[in-house]
Structure formats: structure tokens, C-alpha cells
């Protein structure tokens, strides 16, 4: 059964140095508040897993939290490069970053296989592409009926999955709507999970009979963090702050400007600051 906790408690209890962690959210519902909490708590040697490492992972990498990144597209979508990620890969700053690189299709299949408790996923992938030459975790499997040779990738089974969702009910069930990404799969594939939510409600009320809900018994800890996906967005709560994504390019370009921004906006802040950032009524500090 999910435990309600403060975000700092939830991260302290469930994310350890050296863990593999998937912070997922496909443009929508990116768990920024939880990622910032991991930075503040000084986590090290993480294996970061994420299909689309963007600003949040740029921040974690730039702050030296990660030793490895498993991913399929690393950029600031619609804007350009992730300068902190590039600095780590190209110059080893602040530390070297090992890459395990896949395609979206392979990552999505690997999460699906992880949720389904399979050791690998088979897909029609990477035909004619070079990635299998440089990633030993891209192999083949032969269909026992047709003899066709398919691509195989290992299932993703993270130690911890961290996601942001729309709401939880008092029993700890979690509702997600809109762009779903791979969050449900990430939680079901992980050993532990932390879910931040916009709000807790008595009852989800009228909804589709097929609503995407993670039952309480699939989630380890829930923390209420209004605005916790800012500057990404939460369907029905607040919009994506595209201006910040555009601004990040200049902030992250140089090590100094990055460090100054992180000190002011992450290290000196807390989860309670997200509501105001997202333009929501702040409900006072939570930490």
C-alpha cells in the first residue's frame, strides 16, 4: 500500500546512492520537484534511465548525480542540445557519464517487458542502423516459428521509478490522464516507486471505466507537490512553460551560469516552491 509522505521523506527512504532510477514523463508530467529533491539530497552514482532526458536530467548530470545514462533521445525538445549532458559526454565534466543508448521503440518495449516481468523484449528494430554495433545490449532472438531474426533488448527493471501524476485518492490510488508516456510501465517495472501528485481527492469521481490508474498496492510512496511537474505540465492543471525551455539553453550553456542557477533555484528552494512557479496558489512550504 502506498504511504503518503513528504517529498523529502519519500526520496530519502526510497532513492539510494548507486540506484538505477527511471524518472519518466514524456514531455507531460515530468517529475521536476522529485528530481530536484534528489539533487538537494546529494544522491550520487545513479544510473539514470529515461527515454527523453531533457532539462531535468541535464540538471542531475550537471550536478554530478549520475554515473550512467540509459536513454533514446537527449535534447531540449524544439530548442537544441543539452549542454550539461554534452559537457559530461564530451569533456567528462563534472564527471564522466557512461551512455547506454537505444531507440525510442527499444526503450518503450523494454519498459513494457519490465512491467510484464519478462527478461527481454523482442522488436523489429534498428534495421540498417549503427547503434547495435556500439551497444552490446542490443542482440537478436530468432522466432521459433518463422525463423525470422528479431532485435532483442533487455527489460528495464529499475530500482526506483519516480513519476508525477495528476491526483491520488485517500486510499493512495493514482490517476494519470493525457499523454501517458511510459510512466505506468516504469512504476510496474520498478522495485520501488515515488509518485508526486497535484492533489489528493476523496474520490476520483466520474471517470472513464478504463482510466489509467495505478492502484495503491503498486506504489511505494506518494508526495503531494502542486506544480511538481513545472516547467513541464500537468493536464488540466497548468500548461507547459515553453519560455523556460527556451531560456534553459542560455542558462546551461556555461558551467558558471548553470551552477549559479542551480544554487539559487534548486539548492535554496524546496518542493513548496513549485506551486507558485506553475502559477498555482501556493499552499505554503512543504518539504
Amino acid at each position: 500500500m502506498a504511504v503518503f509522505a513528504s517529498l523529502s521523506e519519500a526520496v530519502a527512504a526510497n532513492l539510494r546512492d548507486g540506484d538505477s532510477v527511471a524518472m519518466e514523463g514524456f514531455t507531460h508530467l515530468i517529475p521536476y520537484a522529485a528530481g530536484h529533491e534528489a539533487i538537494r539530497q546529494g544522491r550520487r552514482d545513479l544510473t539514470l534511465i529515461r527515454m527523453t532526458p531533457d532539462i531535468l536530467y541535464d540538471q542531475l548530470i550537471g550536478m554530478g548525480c549520475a554515473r550512467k545514462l540509459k536513454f533514446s533521445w537527449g535534447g531540449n525538445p524544439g530548442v537544441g542540445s543539452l549542454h550539461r549532458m554534452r559537457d559530461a559526454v564530451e569533456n567528462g565534466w563534472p564527471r564522466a557519464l557512461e551512455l547506454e543508448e537505444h531507440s525510442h521503440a527499444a526503450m518503450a518495449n523494454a519498459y513494457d517487458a519490465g512491467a510484464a516481468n519478462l527478461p527481454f523484449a523482442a522488436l523489429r528494430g534498428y534495421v540498417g542502423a549503427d547503434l547495435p554495433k556500439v551497444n552490446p545490449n542490443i542482440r537478436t532472438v530468432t522466432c521459433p516459428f518463422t525463423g525470422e531474426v528479431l532485435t532483442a533488448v533487455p527489460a528495464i527493471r529499475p530500482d526506483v521509478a519516480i513519476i508525477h501524476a495528476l491526483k491520488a485518492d485517500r486510499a493512495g490510488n493514482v490517476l494519470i490522464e493525457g499523454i501517458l508516456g511510459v510512466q505506468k510501465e516504469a512504476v510496474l517495472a520498478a522495485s520501488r516507486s515515488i509518485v508526486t501528485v497535484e492533489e489528493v481527492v476523496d474520490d476520483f469521481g466520474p471517470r472513464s471505466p478504463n482510466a489509467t490508474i495505478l492502484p495503491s498496492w503498486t506504489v511505494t510512496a506518494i508526495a503531494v507537490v502542486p506544480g511538481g511537474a513545472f516547467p513541464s505540465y500537468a493536464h488540466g492543471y497548468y500548461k507547459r512553460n515553453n519560455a523556460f525551455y527556451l531560456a534553459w539553453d542560455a542558462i546551461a550553456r556555461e558551467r558558471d551560469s548553470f551552477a549559479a542557477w542551480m544554487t539559487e533555484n534548486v539548492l535554496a528552494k524546496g518542493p513548496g516552491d513549485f506551486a507558485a512557479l506553475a502559477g498555482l496558489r501556493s499552499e505554503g512550504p512543504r518539504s
Partner: protein
Amino acid sequence: MTTPATPTEMMTIAAARALRADDICFVGIGAPSAACNLARLTHAPGITLIYESGTIGTKPDILPLSIGDGELCDTALTTVAVPEMFRYWLQGGRITLGFLGGAQIDRFANLNTTVVGPYDKPRVRLPGGGGAPEIAAHSGQVFVTMAMGTRAFVEKLPFITSMGHGEGGDHRARLGLKTRGPTRIMTDLCVMEPDPESKELTVVSLHPGATRQEVRDNCGWTPRFAANLAETPPATDRELSVLRDLHARTKKAHSGG
């Protein structure tokens, strides 16, 4: 009265024209969703746009900055989870047209968005493939839009992120692919199509004002020109006004907080 099309606008317009109302179009990260949406707002209102974030049949009023903006979901017929998108819809063979861009392309329309320099010690680390490797393999055909330049149109790719026609000829078929691969490359200077036999990209149409020499100067290999080289019909007022309105709406929306 309308100011003439810029080369970038001409590239987008040429791409939009090639789209049909019955296309099921998969728009990957970095791809010219401007072209797809221009087509939707002009001659192909019924076109189905799918973004890899899971939105199916989306009709955004502004261009998304990312492939997962809320606008895409709000206007979609429905939105599915990302594993389903890649498994049932892309690999399932439901996409008639994949739309790709890239940092680099070679004469067989293979694309690189991964690294410049050696993979383990890259000079430039690019974003990576995202959906491209499987979009290139599973879409019925692939359109590419890229601005020309010798650093983009290169003799030899340092890394093949997604296969176009490989080494040319029947290379795709030899790898078991039944899809057509890249069939049109829309640039800021011209339109290229693969030769039916060799699959080498061939310039089939020059945009108004562009010259053969300009194309040669901006291509890292010596490009072939079709015997019956055409001129791309100039942008119409309607194409330009719809495109510029779209960009204006988009800029206004994205600059907001």
C-alpha cells in the same frame, strides 16, 4: 503584396505539398511538423497526424515546441501510451508516411542524429535517434526535410542513426524491409528523390531562384540532377499566409509564461 517565400518557408511548403489527405503521418522529434500542419490547414484537411508521444489524429492550432505539448493531446482523437504507440501503431504497420529531419544525410538518404566523430569520443554529441530508426523502417514511405549545407549533406556519415537506402540499390529489401524508405527530400534549395534503381538522391526540382551551382556548393557529394529537372512552383499567397499565421500564433503562444 505578400513578401516572397524564404528558402526555409519554401522547404516547408514543398514538403506540405507532397502530403495527401489520406496519409497517416508519423511526426518524430525534430521533424517538420510545420509542413504537416500546413498541409492539414490547406489542401489535406483530412490528414492524420500522429506524434510519438501517443497522440493520434491531432489537430493543433499552434505548432508544438515538443512532441508532447498539451495542445497535441487536447486536439487528438485519442492518446495512447508510448509503448503501444511504438508497438501497435508504428511497428504494427499503420503509418503510411514517416517524417524525419536530421543533422546529417548522405547520398542514399541515411541519416545521422547521434554523433559527429567517433561514437566513444564524439566531437559533437547529438540528441540521438529517438523514434527515427523504427520510423525509417516501418513507415510506408519516409519524407525528409533538411536545409542544405556541406556539414549536413555529407559524403560519408560518421554514424548511421536511421537507415535510408543503406548502400543503395536493393539494400533495404535485402535486410527484409518491405517499406519504401525515403522517397522525397525537401531542402531549402530543391527537392531530391532517390533514383529508381541506384537509390542515389537526385535533384528533381529547383526552388524558384535556386541554381544548380548553389545546390552543388551546399552538398558534400557531387549531386546528380534529373534529366527533366523541374522548377518547384512558387509558394502561393495562400500557402504563405497560412504558414506565416501558423508561425505567428505559435510564437505568441510559446513566448508566454
